[in-house]
């Protein structure tokens, strides 16, 4: 019996990807191999390490624990989709990415895509976390290099960058009105 192939339309980072995959294709593999988005990393492939975390309709989920065929109705954001468009080909780092750069929040970078997506969603829910809350936010992701201290700092720094941007846009809006 030859394996059935499914035509699946994935919505990733605002683009549509038409892929032809067997039902057993994990979403993580579909993103990497079929969509060419290799930013999503695969560590354990059973839900434990968090490297493969993507946003599904804005909520962090393990892409290694979803089937691509089961992701048809969802809007998926990978680490590539976090970068903000500023007219340049490479785009501008998002606040969370900038914070990792500022605070040395990564070493080998293998775990980083999962942390970036998880923290991006975490700060939407809790824009001003305490240090304990920052630790709780990343508790489901493993990093073998950093010892987590600089990742916790990065969470707090990203919250700061967001707050600065908010304050600036409020001030700008105020000036326009004046």
């Amino acid at each position, binding site marked *: 019996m030859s394996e059935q192939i499914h035509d699946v339309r994935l919505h990733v980072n605002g683009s549509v990807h038409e892929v032809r995959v067997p039902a*057993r294709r994990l979403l993580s593999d579909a993103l990497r191999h079929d969509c060419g988005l290799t930013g999503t990393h695969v560590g354990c492939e059973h839900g434990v390490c*968090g490297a493969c975390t993507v946003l599904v309709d804005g909520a962090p989920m393990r892409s290694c*624990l979803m089937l691509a065929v*089961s992701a048809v109705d969802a809007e998926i954001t990978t680490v590539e989709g976090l970068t903000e468009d500023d007219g340049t080909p490479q785009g501008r780092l998002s606040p969370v990415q900038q914070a990792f750069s500022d605070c040395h929040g990564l070493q080998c970078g293998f775990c980083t895509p999962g942390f970036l997506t998880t923290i991006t969603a975490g700060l939407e829910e809790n824009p001003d976390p305490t240090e304990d809350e920052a630790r709780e936010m990343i508790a489901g992701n493993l990093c073998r290099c950093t010892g987590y201290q600089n990742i916790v700092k990065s969470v707090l720094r990203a919250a700061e960058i967001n707050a600065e941007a908010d304050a600036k846009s409020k001030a700008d809006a105020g000036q326009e009105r004046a």
Partner: protein
Amino acid sequence: MKPAPFAYLRPSTLEEALAALAGEQGAKVLAGGQSLVPLLSMRLAAPSMLIDINALPDLGHVTCDEAGVRVGALARHAHVLASTEAAAAQPLVAMALANVAHPTIRNRGTTVGSIVHADAAAEMPMVLRLLEGSVDVASVRGRRTIPAAELFAGPLESTLAHDEIAVEAFFPALAPRAGVAFQEISRRHGDYALVGVAALVELEGDEVVRARLGYLSVSDVPVVVDVSGSLADPAGAALAELEPVDDIHATADYRAHLVRVLTPRVLAAATDHARQRMNA
């Protein structure tokens, strides 16, 4: 580690899903996939067909009334945990859910899926059993309600028939003079517990007149022990009925030790909770 091939169906009505399940002996239901997909990837399970219930309508509800909390088969752990009405009607549901995996897993995994998966190390099967809740299941043959006491047959084995889909779990509301508490010990927060204990107590005046304890991860099924008659040594009474198991995570002796440590703590916390609710 990749799953073996399987056929895939994503039905849009329950009737269609039930007919497909009844028609294929090797078929399995896919809900959140947070337990099933790892089993597929490790090839510990190799179903011939997956019936994905994620596109079925009307199963994502968390509804509350005086009787209790009803959780639909597609309500994710995170959604149930966020429901303030559910936490008010039966506080033990949220107390336990906060210990189920990490938020990322809770965003996808379903509470009903966790119950019918019947892992003795999982929180919600034990909670359903302690609260004397039930699960409603449907098949082409009709519907039935399975009381929690009859749901757990063995390790990872529920009493659902092969052709049945669980559509809803029911957690009874907490009675006015009652209190609950939950505690577990795990190596890291969010990991499966080495031992978890929940308590449900009822007061008359200031006296505990009924006390039941639920244990997860001690034996190979969730176990509930009535300690109303042995309040002087509830842990001793519980251990007389539990059969702590050895595995790579903990020895049987260590599990027995945790039962002795956690039992009085959880019982005291549930008693305090009941007193607070009576004075509120």
